[in-house]
């Protein structure tokens, strides 16, 4: 993927670019709003990572100009302003996701990959599968190796989200926001318990585990290498 990071703090920018390159992506960076806007207008990137507070041109205005010019590349806002109102402002300006500083790199990477995938995947798929695990979202049926698995409604949504992002790392915050639809800080490992219950239903009786814990990041639904 070709990625552009527009961030004025050189250390943060360097850290992000280095991390993205290590993950196998082609990442470039720009340190001010005007410069970043020109780069984004002249070249095609798969995902843009934009800081909200930038010299010359702030992040919101940058994205508005970009959208006005017809550029549709997904934008992830990065900001120390983390209130819901700030997020809403960011999304209204044309951003696609919002990540508060400080962030874990794994969270950023997971979100960038989801954004890039979103651009070309059809969310309307009703038949989801990985290995021998199958889900029919219309008839609300789940089975593994032909064996029917009964899930609670929330477990179903959780598995559906994991299946739609199969192979990617999904963080706990992403699960809270997308499966539970609440933005809040749980003080206990509530998500882990839900995931472990789901794991008990889809993995326990089978040889090959599909739902993996990614240390320090979150979870990933994938076939073992």
């Amino acid at each position, binding site marked *: 993927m070709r990625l552009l990071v527009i961030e004025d703090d050189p250390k943060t920018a360097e*850290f992000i670019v280095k991390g993205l390159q290590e993950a196998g992506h082609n990442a470039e960076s720009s340190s001010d709003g005007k410069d970043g806007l020109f780069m984004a207008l002249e070249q095609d990137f798969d995902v843009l990572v934009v800081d909200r507070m930038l010299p010359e041109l702030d992040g919101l205005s940058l994205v508005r100009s970009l959208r006005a010019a017809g550029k549709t590349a997904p934008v992830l806002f990065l900001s120390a302003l983390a*209130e819901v*109102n700030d997020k809403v402002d960011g999304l209204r300006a044309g951003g696609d996701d919002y990540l508060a500083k*400080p962030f874990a790199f794994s969270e950023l990477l997971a979100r960038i990959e989801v954004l890039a995938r979103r651009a070309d995947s059809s969310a309307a798929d009703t038949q989801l599968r990985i290995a021998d695990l199958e889900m029919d979202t219309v008839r609300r049926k789940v089975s593994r190796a032909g064996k029917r698995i009964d899930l609670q409604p929330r477990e179903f949504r959780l598995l559906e989200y994991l299946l739609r992002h199969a192979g990617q790392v999904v963080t706990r915050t992403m699960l809270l926001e997308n499966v539970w639809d609440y933005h*809040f*800080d749980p003080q206990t490992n509530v998500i882990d318990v*839900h995931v472990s*219950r789901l794991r008990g239903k889809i993995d326990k009786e089978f040889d090959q585990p599909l739902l993996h814990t990614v240390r320090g990041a979150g979870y990933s639904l994938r076939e073992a290498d």
Partner: protein
Amino acid sequence: MAAQFKKANPRSTTFRLALGYTLLFTASVLLLFAGLYAGTVSFAQQQIRTAIQADITALSEQYQRFGAPGLQELIDRRVNARTTSPELYLLANRNGSPLAGNLSGWPADAIVASDGWLTFDLGIEPEESGKSSRTTYKALARPFALQGGFRLLVGRDLEQLNDLAHRLRNGLLMGMALTAVLAVLGGWYFSRRISRRIERINNACRQVMAGELNQRIPRDDTHDEFDALAGNINAMLGRIEAAVGDVRRVADNIAHDLRTPLSRLRSTLESVDDSDAKHAALREADQLLDTFSALLRIARIEAGERRAGFAQVDLSAMAHDVAELYEPVLDDAGQSLRLEISPGVLAIGDRDLLFQAVANLLDNAHKYAPARSQITLQLSSESGGATFRIIDQGPGIPAVDIERVQQRFQRLEESRSSPGVGLGLSMVKAVAELHGAQLVLDGAGGLTASIRGI
């Protein structure tokens, strides 16, 4: 929200002032008119008495000069000259038989006053009875004994006086009524004018309390007390807004200036080779950052700016969501969750913050209540507003510590060893207050934590 008064409110100061003023004014006018009436009537009566006295003097002189026949002739002349005259005469001999005058006989039922004056009812002559609704007239008279046994009675029919008094009374009563109406209207007008100006100030204050710190009271340039009050309140609001702005700037600066190096620290840690020490350090860093974020969040909630994003929240559905999220964690700890959620409870608020608050309370119950105990989540619609209650069977909180545990970083000694930094209840309190609700803790026999009046 506070009740607004648009119509006359009996508890409003201006209404009571106007009412008192109206009553006082009406009472003074009543007193003035009563004095005027009494004075006028007594003056007219005095005039009549003087005239009667003068008549008696003239008639007794006539008697002395011309004797009884002369007097009789004079009385006849006077009576015949004016048939509708109010003057009353009677000349009687020593037996009481009338000799002259327009009275048929000596009045039998006269009331004799101590000063010799008589008051009696005057029979009406048949041809006049059709004209008047009254059957009798009052009359005032004075008897006079003449030499030779004759008795003279001179009096006046009081019809005219009564008529005058009647008209005067009606006039004054009309005046009274008009005065009272004017006083009520005036009182109402002034009360409304003053109420409106106070209401303008109250409206602006309410908007400020609702988080619109840039609201000001409109000035009217009359330079009176209300205008001065509005000016002072505006100046005060200006100072408060500046102070809140300072706090927010400081908070934003901290967010930007301190969190950036902290995130760099975290990034550096992430790029270190995988090891248990690295993950332990990352957990520590995350906790530091979480504490920091929580502090900033509480500060910004307290600044009230999130009220701008308030919308209708289905609290019943939200309560079920919190319960559903926490149920597995509680279940793993052997704690059972009992739900008493009234259906269809709605409120205006911030969905995510309310969820956070209820989740924090449930989290606390989970941490401090023993295994195999029951935790109850209640939601009910009460007179003061929607109320959440989280009831656990844990050790509770001693009454002396109830206030303290709601402050930042304050925890009970016994719980120092459990995870958390002591911001959970401060967050709940800030969220409750943002919604005009109250966090109430009752720590006797397990803890009951309520968010009352959302």
